[in-house]
């Protein structure tokens, strides 16, 4: 049928146009980045250093991550770890104070959110573990750098991490996951949170303004530490897309080389929770969209069927 042929030609040109403007163009603009499945073994870090011909650095990183692998094999004692954890509590507590640019995150669910390997690496050398060692001449100057000296014993590290995995785990909500892993640096205005936590509602304008000033002061400290204020993540899930977010959170350097965002060491489950929260806040109409979509499309399929029958009835005898 002639009309079907014409429709075919129009459809093909439209699809080719779509292909060129979307999948093809975007593949040219953003090279595909492969993640590491939320396994923290330093593979990407070492490769990065080798590609940049920084052989000294590559060797240092290889040694570091091999050391981490060694510690991960040591059986940690939970009770001993609890005692060791007291060292951490000094900085990592609710209502904490800004230390060197950021308020140390709460560790209530660290065992459930972060990878065991990463936690070991973090205590060994926070800058190396989070892949921001390029910012420091001496990684001791990282805000958490002093932990290298305070907790140098491999058994002690294994104990503390075992304690975290056992006692600081359990059920964690999507909001808790985001709060603990991200919100010390990233505000989320659509969820009414800032780097200081949930924004309370005040009766008097003076109190509202006083809180705003506190937030601005904290943001200035984070900005000085990071180089620029980490972006508000309210709608980041629609601004970057799922694949980008996953590879970026796992290793920020892989998508934005030179960035000062640290790798936060989320495990696969931990990231799923954070991702779910970002979707809740940034794409809240998703469930409604998926619920209504099939119904509307079905309506128009029936509509088209009825329209076709009407057309046949009106055109009877015309050919």
């Amino acid at each position, binding site marked *: 049928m002639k009309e079907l042929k014409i429709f075919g030609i129009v459809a093909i040109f439209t699809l080719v146009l779509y292909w060129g403007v979307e999948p093809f163009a975007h593949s040219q603009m953003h090279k595909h980045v492969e993640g590491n499945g939320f396994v923290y073994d330093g593979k990407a870090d070492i490769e990065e250093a080798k590609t940049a011909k920084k052989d000294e650095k590559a060797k240092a990183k290889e040694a570091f991550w091999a050391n981490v692998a060694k510690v991960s094999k040591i059986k940690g004692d939970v009770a001993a770890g609890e005692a060791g954890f007291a060292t951490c509590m000094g900085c990592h507590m609710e209502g904490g104070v800004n230390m060197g640019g950021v308020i140390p995150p709460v560790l209530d669910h660290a065992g459930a959110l972060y990878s065991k390997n990463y936690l070991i690496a973090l205590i060994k050398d926070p800058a190396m573990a989070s892949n921001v060692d390029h910012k420091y001449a001496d990684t001791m100057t990282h805000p958490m750098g002093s932990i290298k000296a305070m907790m140098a014993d491999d058994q002690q590290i294994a104990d503390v991490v075992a304690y975290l995995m056992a006692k600081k785990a359990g059920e964690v909500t999507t909001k808790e996951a985001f709060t603990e892993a991200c919100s010390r640096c990233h505000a989320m205005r659509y969820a009414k949170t800032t780097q200081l936590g949930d924004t309370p509602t005040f009766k008097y304008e003076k109190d509202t303004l006083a809180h705003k000033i506190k937030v601005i002061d904290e943001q200035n400290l984070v900005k000085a530490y990071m180089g620029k204020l980490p972006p508000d993540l309210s709608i980041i899930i629609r601004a970057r897309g799922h694949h980008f977010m996953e590879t970026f959170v796992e290793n920020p350097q892989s998508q934005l080389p030179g960035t000062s965002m640290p790798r936060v060491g989320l495990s696969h489950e931990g990231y799923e929770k954070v991702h779910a929260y970002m979707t809740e806040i940034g794409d809240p109409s998703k469930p409604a969209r998926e619920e209504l979509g099939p119904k509307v499309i079905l*309506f128009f399929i*029936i*509509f088209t069927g*009825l*329209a076709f*029958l*009407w057309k*046949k*009835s*009106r055109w009877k005898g015309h050919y």
Partner: protein
Amino acid sequence: MAKSEQGRRDFMGMALGGFTALGGIGALYAMKRSWDPLPSVKAAGFTTVDLSGAQPNVLNVEKWRGKPIFVLKKSKDMKTDPRDVVVGSDHFHVSIGLCTHLGCIPAYKPAEHKFLCACHGGEFDASGHQIFGPPPSPLEIPPFKVDGTKLVLGEAGPEYKKMLDAGLTV
């Protein structure tokens, strides 16, 4: 009437038209929902007032759903009333501070224990009953709930429901 050239009923056309109308109703429903007050507006429909710091015979004006709310702690020499909000041993007069005549905000006269509306001279006593002038009914009591020493405006607690049933407010 959708009739074809030959004068026969256009059944398919009517079927299509009817089905399309269903879709139209769906679209109209979505439009109606877009017109609804937003969740943030409805959430702001609750105000919590802390009564613990209230001074006797000193009127506190709170804001609830954009309206002024009178919260008056009665002093020991003031008459109690079935419309009072009782918190512990204290009696409060709580009402929407809009004159029931034409909606101006009456001023409180602490020396005379009464509200005087400047617009047309209406007067209410310290329990909100109209005592002089054009107001046709007492000051309205907003839905409220007593929560310890706090008053939650916008939520209909048991004390409020009792007042409604007894016809003490509308």
